[in-house]
């Protein structure tokens, strides 16, 4: 009996290890499964995390910008988080993935070769002169009456973030640094937005980093907005990005250029027709339209500029979130000279 069990466990271990070894030796799946060339019958599959800024995809479709650019079909797949989207784009499961800038640089630093196709959301050129709360869909909230009055006050306190070493943590760290504090002294807690709001109410955490529509909920519950860290960190330009595997882009540049061109047209339309864009956003996120209107207005930059993105790259290094700048060059952006 024991011998048989030993053999069975050995066989199972063998199968598992050989599978792993085989995977280790394999290359990424062959990209470009969808129809190739922006000749009017090109299909593009996109991986997103279901944000308000995805309204641009609906605009591009409904206004006919995709069709005009030669893209006949758009398949939108919702993924759990940006790393999952990047893994999917690498494996060829999707053509284009949405990712915030921070996971993008993390991926580049770990040797994942990605190309920026287009911005996916961000801030206007004069963002620093505007009211940050109206632009930034992220916010750090403290309970009403808290003794924390500036980002520096977060030193030594419990601050919840949706994920460790991701965009919210990095941007808050920069806000603390700019305020003269030491972000390494913060006790970061990973909490989903609902748990974060509840923990804030019960005093289990001192501050919560939230994304719209939970920012509106936090305000409605009497919490105070301490900082809008997105604008502080990025200052202007692209924040969210549409990215693809560089190999895939090299194989079929027309398809990605067509996608970019259609999206730029959608951005122009969305920036001018915010009510309509918010209507789409409400449908995508399932959030009440009135609630969405109370929060930050989505802005789509028309271009992903190297200097804007590299500024974020540099700040991540200065904050210690990466050992050196990620290998990001001008040619990492599709069509950049």
């Amino acid at each position: 009996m024991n011998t048989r069990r030993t053999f069975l466990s050995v066989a199972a271990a063998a199968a598992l290890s050989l599978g792993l070894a085989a995977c280790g030796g394999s290359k990424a799946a062959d990209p470009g499964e969808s129809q190739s060339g922006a000749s009017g019958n090109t299909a593009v599959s996109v991986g997103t995390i279901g944000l308000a800024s995805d309204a641009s995809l609906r605009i591009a479709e409904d206004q006919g910008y995709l069709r005009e650019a030669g893209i006949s079909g758009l398949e939108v797949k919702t993924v759990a988080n940006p790393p999952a989207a990047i893994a999917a784009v690498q494996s060829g499961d999707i053509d284009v993935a949405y990712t915030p800038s921070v996971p993008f640089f993390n991926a580049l630093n770990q040797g994942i070769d990605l190309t920026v196709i287009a911005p996916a959301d961000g801030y206007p050129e004069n963002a620093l002169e505007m009211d940050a709360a109206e632009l930034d869909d992220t916010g750090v909230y403290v309970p009403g009456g808290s003794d924390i009055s500036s980002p520096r006050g977060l030193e030594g306190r419990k601050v919840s973030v949706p994920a460790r070493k991701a965009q919210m943590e990095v941007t808050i760290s920069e806000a603390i640094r700019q305020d003269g504090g030491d972000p390494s002294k913060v006790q970061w807690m990973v909490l989903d937005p609902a748990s974060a709001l509840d923990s804030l109410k019960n005093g289990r955490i001192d501050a919560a980093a939230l994304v719209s529509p939970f920012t509106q909920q936090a305000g409605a519950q009497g919490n105070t907005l301490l900082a809008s860290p997105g604008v502080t960190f990025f200052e202007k330009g692209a924040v969210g990005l549409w990215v693809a595997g560089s190999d895939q882009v090299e194989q079929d540049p027309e398809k990605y250029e067509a996608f970019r061109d259609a999206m730029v047209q959608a951005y122009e339309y969305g920036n001018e027709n915010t009510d309509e864009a918010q209507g789409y956003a409400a449908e995508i996120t399932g959030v009440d339209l009135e609630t969405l209107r109370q929060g930050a207005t989505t802005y789509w930059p028309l271009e992903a500029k190297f200097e804007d993105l590299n500024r974020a790259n540099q700040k991540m290094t200065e904050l210690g979130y990466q050992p050196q700048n990620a290998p990001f060059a001008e040619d990492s952006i599709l069509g950049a000279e």
Partner: protein
Amino acid sequence: MTTTADITATPVATPRRPRRRSRRIPSWVKWALAVGTPTLLLAAWWTASADSSNTFFPSLEQILTRFQQLWLFDHFLTDVVPSLANLAGGFALAAIVGVGLGFVLALIRPVRWLLEPIIHFVRSIPPVALVPIFITMIGFGNDMRITSIALAATFPTLIATMDGIRSVDGTLKDVSVVYRLTRAEKFTQVYLPAAAPQIFAGLQVSLQVAFIVMIASEMLGAATGIGALTLTAQQSFMIADMWAGVLLLGVLGFVINKIFDLVKARILAWYFGAKEAQRAT
């Protein structure tokens, strides 16, 4: 006094089968297989992945280097020990509640009728789905993690204990009545030993469940523990670190299971001995 072992081991008047000459495998062969097979597999993995250019499947050399840097012993005290302490606490709680409640439900019918539907309802809920609820109720410290582990791991032991007690041989029950055993004596000398093999089977499943929930419970709250570190590595694309975490989990799971097997073999020595004797007759 007649014990369960005595009764089970009593030769039964069955026709004697011709004894097969057992071909015992020498222990050195077993050891060679136990050590040699994994070594060969690791060597195969090492060779096959040596030139890997796939970021998501780094070479074994890279993974082992990160394994050594992370777990031996930089993060051992800060992450491995807390995770294992939560596992031990949650599992111990589950074992006590599972066996205790299993006895009560098996022996007291009205209580069983009352609680069984609720138990089956709660055990159908994936434990991971309950983690946010526990956070709301008891926060996100170790209490939440131990509670999550304990709740999830209780049910396999509870069900196994109930089944074990309910399937105790009627003869044993009659014997305990004839010998006028007290309730405590019946519990410790008849029911518990008779149901022990099934209880241990339930405990083994509970241990697996506890291990899974230990990782899941670290996805929220303070980013400490093996699960939290492995998840952060995955989300930061530190793929070799992620594989090192997965490897550590595999090793720990294997070692914990082996320890459990040793404890089970020692406590149930009478049972395995009786089965061996039955096979021999």
